């Protein structure tokens, strides 16, 4: 057990700074991979260390995994010295928080053996074995204990565990090939782990890929488009979540993950149809990005990023909140003890509307239903984006017809959201690992939404 120096660090750093905070984090992680029915790799790792932030004339962060006071003191001294150089030095203080929280469930990850994980993986592999040419499945879990303190007097202790499963399935037919990869994640114990849902997804993917591989490509043109929740989710994440991270808008990420199409705009800014609202909410129980307090000791809450077609709130950590003189809304996340907290998403989703699945299709004369996607990407200001359909069908006079292979939506954020004229009342989530920062930090997220109808979209 480490972390015993946290109070001493706080005292020592506090005496040498205008503001300081320290985060001690310890993790236990395990994972295994099965490839085409054969065991591939397994690993486990324990990790722990301190992240110490010092603010004077600029901000410096020291990261150390040492439990030797002299070495800890030396690295704090180094950070204090660096923080005397000129630079940005604002930080949001906010109210003092003292709390502890836990989300480790009843069926705890630490009680599960590697054998248990292998058994799950073998079962998953067997589900997809019939009809696929390539199968790779991976299961991992992570237990995290964290203590946060700052010079204002906050003290937050949090414990949680997360479980992640992902697979890639490939199907070959003559010289054609189709693939599908999906990700699933939860926060809590293994009671949250929905293996029947994963199995069903794998089984469906094999059977769908075997039909998609024979399907015709689309004749390019304009269509009404119904998108499934998986696409609503990735759109919410990429073109609502990322562009509202305020550090991007301010240019701090410009050389890395990029900026935002919202840079320089007056707010609220119209992003599309008034049918569209996008929410980011870290407090959804069981969600993969769940937390009660962020990694800067700020209480988590739901926030509207877009509301009725306009920007509403930004994702803010302590640093970016201070630049615009407002409160952090608890978006400061760090993927590991040796990473800075950045403004990040948690569960980002398009708010459901009031259309049933059938109602969305009713007056579509000539359309395409794109239920899920394969390749996707977006430019660095989160404007020019592309989603390649995986499971997709033609729609004629409100009815689903034959399959179509790899239809492509290549559009921009404003055109996409402006084309939405009906939003379904269903809501589904999928998991992902979101990357940002340097060194790159992958944080756990959910993304989701309902089915939606878009009018007159170019499909190719």
């Amino acid at each position, binding site marked *: 057990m*480490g972390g015993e120096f946290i109070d001493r660090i706080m005292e020592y750093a506090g005496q040498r700074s205008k503001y300081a905070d320290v985060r001690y984090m310890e993790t236990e992680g395990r994972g*295994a991979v099965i490839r085409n029915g054969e065991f*591939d*790799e*397994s*690993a*486990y*790792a*324990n*990790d722990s*260390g301190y992240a110490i932030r010092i603010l004077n004339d*600029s901000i410096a*962060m*020291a*990261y150390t*995994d*040492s439990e030797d006071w002299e070495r800890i003191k030396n*690295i704090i001294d*180094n*950070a204090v010295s*660096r*923080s005397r*150089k000129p*630079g*940005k030095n604002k930080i949001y203080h906010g109210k003092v928080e003292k709390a502890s929280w836990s989300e480790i469930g009843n069926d705890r990850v630490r009680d599960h053996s*590697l054998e248990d994980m*292998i058994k799950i993986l073998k079962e998953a592999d067997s589900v997809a074995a019939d009809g696929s040419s*390539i199968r*790779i499945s991976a299961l991992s879990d992570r237990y995290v204990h964290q203590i946060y303190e700052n010079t204002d007097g906050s003290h937050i202790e949090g414990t949680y565990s997360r479980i992640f499963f992902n697979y890639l399935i*490939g199907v070959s037919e003559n010289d054609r*090939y*189709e*693939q599908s990869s999906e990700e699933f994640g939860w926060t809590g114990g293994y009671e949250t782990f929905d293996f029947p849902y994963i199995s069903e997804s794998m089984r469906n993917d094999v059977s769908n890929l075997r039909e998609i591989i024979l399907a015709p490509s689309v004749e390019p043109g304009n269509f009404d488009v119904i998108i499934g929740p998986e696409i609503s989710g990735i759109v919410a994440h990429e073109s609502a979540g990322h562009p509202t991270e305020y550090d991007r808008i*301010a*240019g*701090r*990420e*410009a*050389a*890395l*993950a*990029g900026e935002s199409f919202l840079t320089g705009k007056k707010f609220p800014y119209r992003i599309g149809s008034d049918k569209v609202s996008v929410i980011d909410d870290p407090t959804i129980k069981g969600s993969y990005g769940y937390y009660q307090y962020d990694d800067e000791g700020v209480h988590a809450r739901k926030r509207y990023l877009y509301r009725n077609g306009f920007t509403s709130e930004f994702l803010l950590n302590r640093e970016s909140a201070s630049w615009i003189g407002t409160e952090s809304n608890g978006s400061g996340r760090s993927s590991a003890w*040796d990473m800075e907290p950045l403004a990040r998403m948690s569960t980002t989703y398009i708010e459901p509307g009031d259309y049933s699945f059938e109602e969305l299709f009713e007056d579509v004369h000539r359309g395409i239903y794109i239920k899920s996607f*394969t*390749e996707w*990407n977006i*430019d*660095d200001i989160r404007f*020019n*984006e*592309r989603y*390649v359909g995986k499971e997709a069908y033609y729609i004629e006079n409100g009815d689903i017809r034959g399959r179509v292979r790899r239809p*492509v939506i*290549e559009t*921009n954020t404003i*055109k996409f959201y402006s084309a939405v004229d009906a939003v379904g009342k269903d809501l589904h989530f999928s998991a992902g690992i979101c990357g940002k920062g*340097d060194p*790159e930090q992958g944080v756990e997220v959910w993304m989701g939404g309902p089915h939606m109808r878009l009018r007159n979209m*170019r499909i*190719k």
Partner: protein
Amino acid sequence: MNMFDLDRVTGYLEKRFDEFSVIMFTNHDEQIRFSNGSRDLHNIWEESVLNVFVARGKRTIMTTIKEGSDLEKSIENLSKRLDQAPENPLFFGINDRKQNYAISGSSDMVFDADNLADQAINGAEDAGSERMAGIVYAMRSRVEIATRYNRGNYDSIGVEAVVRSFKNDRSGQACGHSGIGGKLDAYAIGRRSAEGIRNVERHEGREGRYDVILAPMAAGNILTSGSYAFSAHTVISGLSYLQDMIGKQVASPIVSIYDDPTDTMGMGYRFFDEEGTATQRVPIIDHGSLKTYLHSTSTARYMKTETTGNAGIISPEAWQIEMSAGDRTLDDMISDMHEGLMIMNSWYLRFQDYRNGVFSTVPRDGVYYIRNGEIKEYWDGIRISDSMPSILKNISALSKESEYVKWWNEISPSRFPYMIVNGLNVTKSH
């Protein structure tokens, strides 16, 4: 300072396991992040860790052991977990031949991140950057390896810098990296980021197939993303677009691609792989012909060949991809082009089909339309939507000059010239 006594560690491991590879990293890294002309953050890391791989028969497992852990207990724990692991059919042992490493010992060399960051900012400002952002990241690690058969150590010292500049809402980006044998001109990187922004008329991009000059960053984004196909593990898994292609022409005859971890001018250098095999310059594609996949001992024994010194014991990987330069200059490439594009950088490459290498990636930091040998337009909103095999086969020219490129997680440490790809498929947003 060594956090663990490797003799003691190997003593425990030798008694309990048939095979082991333990690598100790003692890291001292610094990074400056800056934007809008001033520092955002100074990061300082001090960490030490043991990466441990063990095998008993064909059972394998990997773990990390941190400083302060009870070593004997950690290894006992590892032994118990190994018993739970199934046999790994792809494990065929680790390299048991005695190795000679090119360099061992220590170095006092230090890259001063603070000073380099100042130089990068000054370079960008002197070249007219209206605003900029970037990082300088200096790494220093003592690396020591022990297996049953080999011991080695070296100082891994490297630095990378990236600067993105803006003028009139247009961006330019430059990067560079260096290892222990090189140096980094951060001022020049800053300058290039701004000087690369050409003042020509802005237009929406137009779809079609174009002859395209890929600058080293754009080439690096595409070709290092596609380097997964070089790994024998990917081939065995059935996901490589180079499956069953050894000895066949997979690229234009002017294309030679190496994995070169012996090049200490770049930060991707290393003297041994993760099972203690001495690294070497590996010709992967020689004048368009596929010479080898990248191997560990296990994948090599599985495929009845020799290791290339690229372990990952189960899953080999490239350390530092380099493409041979050509005989053209960039100016010639532009002036000889009747109609085409020059793409300075690209990001967010995603595959829809690993097996056939089908992907798209989003150009940024300068897409220029060339007509009759002159840069005429600055384009927005396009995407490269093509495949790795097609690009490799359609490279028609390479520049004399090449650059060491490494950028965030988009480009792994590598070295590329400018290149012309004929008939590259360009799509756009509607």
